[in-house]
């Protein structure tokens, strides 16, 4: 029963691990085919990475250099950064994005794993109905909900003042995907272990928090990564609900920034660099964990 499910979850984890560690089945001998493969992959990698390099290089160029064809800046300068940071609210937008992403991700990690656990380990009336009800929401595209969410926000004043933080964050505080994912991962936690803790007199919340949750840490980490990136890059809903400049998230602020500096590409590229580089550094540092996390949520979700 539980053991077969456990191995399936373990196998997915192992596969994701293998994917990241780069253990492949191919033999490591030299051949022309392998050389060709490397050539093609390198060509593709150039196409993927060049736009980012070009963005960074442009942001380091003084405006007159943009019309000359030179790949590298002749007189690299940080002046663009100074100007963009002085004339826009970038610092504030950063803070907003970080606050909202951390708040949402914490909430998702807590509630999704709690609900996933409850749906997996408890028997109670209405359980299947609730589970189906949650699963069914996966079929509803966000676009269909934005109008009702907006009318709700207008009614309660969530698009005014500090309440905008709540307004931006509230739709994503619990996710059906995460619940589904966590429910599957709690299969790997043997019920006997939980029963033993019950006999020892630990209350149910403590059993979840201290016994079950630590056993599915990799899954929670994956969920957090997946959710953080999604939140950080969320665009349509924050664009609609945030009504004042100080409460924009980074993508929304960036979008409005373009409207104000239409053809000053060095400024736009500087703004784009400011918005992407920190996340790129985080990505490069935690590349393995992030890709593993996405693969895991992708495969299970």
């Amino acid at each position, binding site marked *: 029963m539980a053991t077969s499910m456990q191995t399936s979850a373990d196998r997915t984890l192992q596969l994701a691990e293998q994917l990241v560690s*780069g253990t492949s089945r191919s033999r490591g001998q030299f051949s022309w085919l392998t050389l060709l493969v490397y050539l093609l*992959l390198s060509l593709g990698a150039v196409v993927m990475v060049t*736009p980012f390099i070009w963005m960074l290089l442009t942001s380091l160029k003084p405006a007159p250099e943009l019309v000359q064809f030179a790949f590298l800046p002749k007189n690299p300068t940080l002046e663009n950064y100074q100007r963009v940071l002085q004339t826009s609210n970038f610092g504030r937008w950063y803070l907003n994005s970080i606050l909202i992403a951390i708040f949402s991700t914490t909430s998702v990690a807590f509630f999704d794993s709690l609900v996933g656990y409850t749906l997996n380990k408890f028997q109670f009336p209405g359980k299947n109905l609730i589970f189906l009800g949650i699963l069914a929401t996966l079929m509803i595209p966000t676009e269909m909900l934005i109008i*009702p969410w907006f009318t709700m926000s207008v009614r309660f004043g969530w698009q005014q003042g500090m309440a905008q933080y709540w307004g931006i964050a509230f739709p994503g505080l619990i996710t059906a995907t995460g619940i589904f994912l966590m429910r599957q991962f709690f299969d790997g936690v043997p019920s006997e272990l939980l029963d033993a803790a019950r006999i020892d007199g630990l209350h149910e919340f403590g059993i979840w928090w201290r016994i079950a949750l630590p056993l599915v840490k990799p899954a929670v980490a994956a969920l957090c990564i997946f959710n953080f990136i999604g939140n950080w890059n969320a665009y349509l809903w924050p664009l609609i609900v945030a009504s004042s400049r100080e409460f924009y998230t980074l993508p929304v602020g960036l979008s409005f920034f373009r409207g104000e500096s239409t053809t000053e590409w060095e400024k736009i590229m500087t703004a784009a660099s400011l918005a992407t580089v920190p996340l790129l550094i985080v990505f490069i540092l935690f590349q393995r964990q992030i890709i593993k996390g996405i693969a895991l949520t992708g495969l299970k979700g």
Partner: protein
Amino acid sequence: MNLTLKQRQIVWAYIFMLVPLLFFIIIRWYPTLQAFNVSFRDWNVFEGAGPWIGLDNYREIWKDLLKPRSAVRAAFWNTIRYVLYGVPSQLILGLGIALLLNHIRRFSGFFRAAYFVPYVTSAVAVAFVWNWLYQPQTGLLNQLLTFLGLPNQPFTKSPSQALQSITAVAVWQSLGFTVIIFLAGLQQIPEVYYEAARIDGANSWQLFWKVTLPLLNPVIVYLAVLSTISFLRLFALVQNMSPQGTGGPLKSTTTVVLEVYREGFSSYNMGYAGALTVILFFIILLITVIQLRLFTRRYEY
């Protein structure tokens, strides 16, 4: 307390589920019903619920669809084209790169990261970087074309190239995800199948068509569904890559979601926008069901 263990478990389950259940009722299920309700009304958000007008919003959309130059007609037609161009490109390129990556041992981590970088970047920043690359005279791509002695291209500035140019960026951005999931699928295929086929005298070509592709079928269906849905919901890239974010030039890039945004949040014509989102929901539902039916075939292991 004199509750049995079973009863106590039920109480705990309901305590755990209390907040999440309220969340799903208030933030998911009620707004879903509300979305249908809005679509049957003449609704201006700041004046609250308007009068019930039955199917009038849908009739209006139908009329607009029949008008040769209407924005809504362009939006539906463009959205279909985004899907038709984008989904096959993304699947074929994704599978191709995954096969290449599966072949190599060294640097595979590096390549995976390179292909994955755009996926963790905000669509708004991506849109700006590509706007800059696509610029008529100063853009890197046109400078490259000039260098190669080829005629310059207008890309997003021309009604006949803009949609394809944006599709290319969308594919570029989500390619990394497709690659990772395909790679995981490829590594799940047991080596024994290949060995058995080789003993039977199959060549590499046959191995691909007779072993790899059929066993990869569930992954292909999964990615096809995901990719179709994401192209049906295209918004951020189009809004930030078309002039003034209106889906131009000459409506050539506008999408259903962009029209929802413009009707609902620029003209505050919520009823009409709501009806559009309901139609989008049914299209997504229909396509998901068709794809699952059409492409999911059972293979005996």
